């Protein structure tokens, strides 16, 4: 055997692209912001799943989180819309071209307040897209006010205490009809990556609430969305192992064992693989568990609910297979005879 040295070729995915092809612009978010880490996970997931970046639409509302599509997959088409109204824009875009993959990035303020109306309708329509809430419990971009996902009793930097209950976007999403609902933590690389890859493969609304600490306004003592709080309170429903049909992913540890996950700030998170027999198709159980853990002050993570049977919005509408956007005139403008027929009916 010869020992000729080989120059290591950069790793490419199944469509021959490198991870570089999935990079975005340089982030302008605060160093250490959870949103940046999520962008990285998204970049990797789309690279690993071998999705052509040109086939992706990145949608968002307004907020620090909603800026983040600028920081991944520059070769994809991006629509940074208005505050809280990404769901309608994303829906419209998918109606125009249902052959595209769509990923939407929102914030907890963007989704759970101004955007609540559109959010629930996106869920009940089961619009085929990945909808990520980068959830920090505060409004980042407007400098630190409470959002509607802030826990009761949590404190602002200024000392103001939140006396309203949090909206659990996951429980809501399950109830409203999303077909893939989960929660993760921006620092939990492994879990988030696995969930994201599964999300990419899902056809229907994927609603992911990703706890994403705001280092500037919500990483202080008294916040329930801080790194420290998350390390102490996160409890997982189980290790997420996703096996795509073209690439095997190894499950690294057995059920009922624990694992320490390294967080990007250097600390580690102890994940416990609970509920080996957890059934993600049972809506009622999932909702109940979310309520129970919430009552205990714990943050449950994992994929809570999946339904692979429910038809997504574009199939409900029984549209032609091609994108509506590019149908030729021969198919969209009726004939002279049709006009004559309608005119006759009105004569």
């Amino acid at each position, binding site marked *: 055997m010869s020992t000729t040295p080989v120059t290591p070729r950069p790793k490419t995915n199944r469509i021959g692209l490198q991870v570089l092809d999935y990079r975005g612009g340089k982030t302008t978010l605060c160093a250490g912001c959870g949103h940046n880490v999520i962008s990285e996970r998204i970049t990797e997931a789309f690279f690993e799943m071998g999705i052509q970046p040109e086939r992706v639409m990145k949608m968002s509302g307004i907020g620090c989180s909603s800026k983040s599509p600028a920081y991944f997959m520059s070769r994809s088409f991006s629509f940074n819309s208005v505050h809280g109204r990404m769901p*309608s824009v994303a829906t*419209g875009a998918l*109606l125009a*071209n249902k052959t*595209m993959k769509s990923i939407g990035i929102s914030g907890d303020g963007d989704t759970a307040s101004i955007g609540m109306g*559109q959010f629930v309708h996106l869920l009940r329509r089961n619009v085929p897209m990945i909808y990520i809430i980068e959830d920090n419990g505060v409004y980042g971009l407007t400098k630190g006010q409470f959002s509607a996902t802030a826990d009761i009793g949590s404190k602002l930097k200024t000392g103001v205490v939140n006396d309203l209950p949090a909206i659990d976007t996951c429980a809501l999403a399950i109830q409203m009809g999303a077909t893939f609902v989960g929660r993760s933590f921006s620092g939990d690389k492994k879990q988030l990556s696995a969930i994201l890859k599964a999300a990419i493969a899902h056809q229907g609304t994927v609603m992911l609430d990703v706890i994403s600490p705001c280092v500037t306004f919500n990483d202080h003592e008294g916040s329930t969305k801080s790194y420290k709080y998350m390390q102490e309170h996160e409890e997982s429903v189980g290790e997420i192992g996703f096996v795509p049909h073209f690439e095997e992913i190894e499950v690294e540890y057995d059920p009922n064992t624990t694992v320490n996950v390294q967080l990007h700030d250097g600390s580690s998170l102890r994940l416990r693989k609970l509920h080996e027999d957890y059934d993600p198709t049972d809506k009622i159980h999932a909702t109940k568990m979310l309520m129970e853990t919430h009552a205990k002050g714990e943050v449950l993570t994992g994929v809570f609910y999946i339904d692979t049977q429910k038809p997504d919005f574009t199939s409900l509408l029984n549209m032609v297979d091609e*994108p509506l956007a590019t149908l030729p005139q021969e198919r*969209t403008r009726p004939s002279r005879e049709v*006009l004559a027929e*309608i005119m006759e009916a009105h004569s």
Partner: protein
Amino acid sequence: MTSSGLVVQGQPISDPDGGVKQIVNDFSIQIATVNGSGSQSANNVLLRSIFRMGVPVSSKNLFPSNIAGLPTWYTIRVSRYGWVARKADIDVLIAMNPETAREDVLSLAPGAAVIYDEPFKLNEIRSDLTYYPVPFDRLAAATGADAKVRKLVKNMVYVGVAAHLLSIDMEWVEKTVRKQFAKKVKAAELNLNAVHAGFDYAVSTLTKQDPYVIEHMNATDGKVIIDGNAAAAMGAMFAGVTVVTWYPITPSSSVVEQLIDFMKKYRIEQDGKSNFAIVQAEDELAAIGMVLGAGWAGARSMTATSGPGISLMAEFAGYGYYAEIPGVIFDIQRTGPSTGLPTRTSQADLTFIAGLSHGDTKHVMLIPGTVKECFEFGIEAFDLAEQLQTPIFVLSDLDLGMNSWMSEPFDYPEKPITRGKVLSAQQLEEVGGFARYKDVDGDAIPYRTLPGTDHPAASYFTRGSGHNEKALYTERPDDYENNMLRLARKFETARTLVPKPILEGTGRQRVGIIAFGTSHWAVLESRDQLERESQLPTDYLRIRAYPFTSEIHDFVATHERVYVVEQNRDSQMFNLLKIDLDPTQVTKLHSVRHFNGLPIDARTVTDAIAAQEGAE
């Protein structure tokens, strides 16, 4: 309709036999009923029977914002001269609503005829009218209709009575009933029985004493009767619309409801699949959001709404303008502010839409004045939206949208669909990429790509915040200023592309009239009145779009005084013109306004202009 060949209106014509002087084909009929009593079919039969006798007709449906129980009035104007604006005076009343009957009778023109439900005992209210009592309940019962449908059938009885008294050809009434109930043979028979019951009763019991009669003409040959909302829906379908989103609101709902019917019939492909998507959104915010999302991704997309919906769309409208995304918004105007009179008409959304959204925003508006233009602009709006890459607003109103209008049949669109400046992957390869917001051709319209274009240089980042030519985020003062100046130049390009105004008259008169939308019909008739009654010849320019084209500036420049006729309190068109015109021309403008919720009538226009001109 031109104003040539007119005779003096409303003059009774002597009967050769020396009997009652007749007024032929020139009067109005009003049917006063209760909302929800099912009078619509009967009224429609009356309207269409007269139309099919070749006599020009128009109708105004005055209905309350209520489902059932409140008064409603349907007025048919019969005009052998072809005038179709609302006529304020009522000549024939069919009084079916006990709540309003007294008041209705008191409001009639002297000499009017009253067909009324016998128990109302209206015949003693005034002595200058002709009364025809009819036992409607008894006649309806005699048709054999069961109690449930008797109420509906009662309406058809007045059709029969009116047919006899006004000499409407029963053959045409029967044909019309059969066409209207084409798919329901039993209903057709029942309704025909009711018509005959009324007709026979009138023949045997009532003696004609009023002057109003219908005679055959051939002024409606080849014409159609249609409402503006159906016409707009047809326009959208023939424009090749693919994504339609909406949220119900009167008077715009029927645009999409009729569009749904058309699309289900004519836009389903061989395999049974739709080449369109129609979505009832959760609100108007979502409706316009979907329109922009779809427009951005390359679909021909639209929504239809009215004022309150437009209010909610403001933020996205500004987004669409600034991020340069095509989309079509039909605004079927109704009165405001807020919910105003929800079922009454106005032209009061002009200034609001012209600058809808905050900051410096300018929108293109198309303003149809006829049902044919509802169809044509329904098509044109989509071409312009894609050509100009901006939201296009089509401003119709309740009067045009929900009332039935005569029209020449619509012409098939010969101009192919224009998708505007969209770069394909191959074109990107040839030109070596693109800058999304760069003015390459000098018309201030940039090039765009559609999501999914398979080229690494195809993508760009769409945002409503500061961006440079390459669509990159920027807060640089010069970038913002350049972009905003380009958008203003793009609006100048729009000026050259929108439908031009239509001039009527010699162009050499001292006095000019400017109108738009449904005010058109009153102005046509008013010009005739002004000439006959006050010897005041006028020129007339009908505006059909905003931004204003150069013809409008010329028209003002070449006339001494110009009356701007519109249906709103604040002279909105007048004010838009003031902003646009050379300051030296502005003092020539005078305002004629009408804003009580009813469609404008000719008399209002004539009296206002005559008074300001010092004419008798």
